[in-house]
């Protein structure tokens, strides 16, 4: 095998599936475009607000509570990447490496429990 002309052909079907799914969705939309009615008037295009006149734009300042969740998600996602790699090579690595990996997981869990104890993850904190 020569890396010069290596093509990851296993992933070709994945790509084909992607194209198929896109074609299906766009095809459905196009098919509908021919037969669906179009009777637009300004009231119909207004954003929904339970029948009231819409008051202001939606893009206003929203609670900051979503940010800790996103940050934690990033941290855990990185950790999960290593967890998975550890899972795959669990029985083929040396005890020392295993110890390092478990220390890695343990440290993150420790940080997580610190946040939990401090209550940074309470939704109703503020």
């Amino acid at each position, binding site marked *: *095998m*020569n*890396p*010069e*002309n*290596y*093509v*990851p052909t296993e*992933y070709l079907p994945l790509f084909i599936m992607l194209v198929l799914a896109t074609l299906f969705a766009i095809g459905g939309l196009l098919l509908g475009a021919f037969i669906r009615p179009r009777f637009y008037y300004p009231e119909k295009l207004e954003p929904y607000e339970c029948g009231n006149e819409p008051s202001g734009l939606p*893009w*206003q*300042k*929203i*609670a*900051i509570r*979503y*940010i*800790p969740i*996103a*940050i*934690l*998600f*990033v*941290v855990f*996602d*990185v*950790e*999960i*990447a*290593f967890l*998975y*790699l*550890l899972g*795959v*090579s669990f029985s*083929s*690595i*040396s005890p*020392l*490496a*295993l110890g*390092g*990996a478990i*220390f*890695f997981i343990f*440290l*993150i869990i*420790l*940080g*997580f429990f*610190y*946040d939990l104890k*401090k209550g*940074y993850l309470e939704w109703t*904190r*503020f």
Partner: protein
Amino acid sequence: MSVVRILFFYFAFVILLSAFMGLRQRSPVKALLWILLLFVHIGGLYLLLNAEVLAFLQIIIYAGAILVLYLIMLLILDVREEERSMLYLKNWQSRIWAGLLVSFFFILGSLTFVNKHRGEHTLDKLKEVGPSKILGRLLFEDFTFPLIILAFLLLVPLLGIGLLFVKRRQDGSA
């Protein structure tokens, strides 16, 4: 030209294009979407390099987590359109700095460029053992110490989340 070359040039072109378009785009959310395209194509480039695990980890972590964090941040901070005056490339000093930075990376890249494939992890071995297993073994055996440093790095945001709340408590606002 072989298929690999064509695919490589496609990925490289889209990466450069989406980076450029992401910089040009005025709406931050759309700029973010260009960056999403960029990340997905970097994944494709990894795939061509026979780094399957890395390719999908790239998408999972960069596109699926970090960019989502940015997106949520954007929605919360209510930035619909970038302010014109905030364009930091307006003055010539910053342009020079940016140019120097780009050329630094360019030189660094060309210095470390290797035009042949070497090392013990050949394609055949990769196929035999499986790419994920080799990566895992390499990571945990040879890079145990950097891994532990990484753990401490990852601890920083976990401990730093509290800062978000401390500031708000001083305001007294909810």
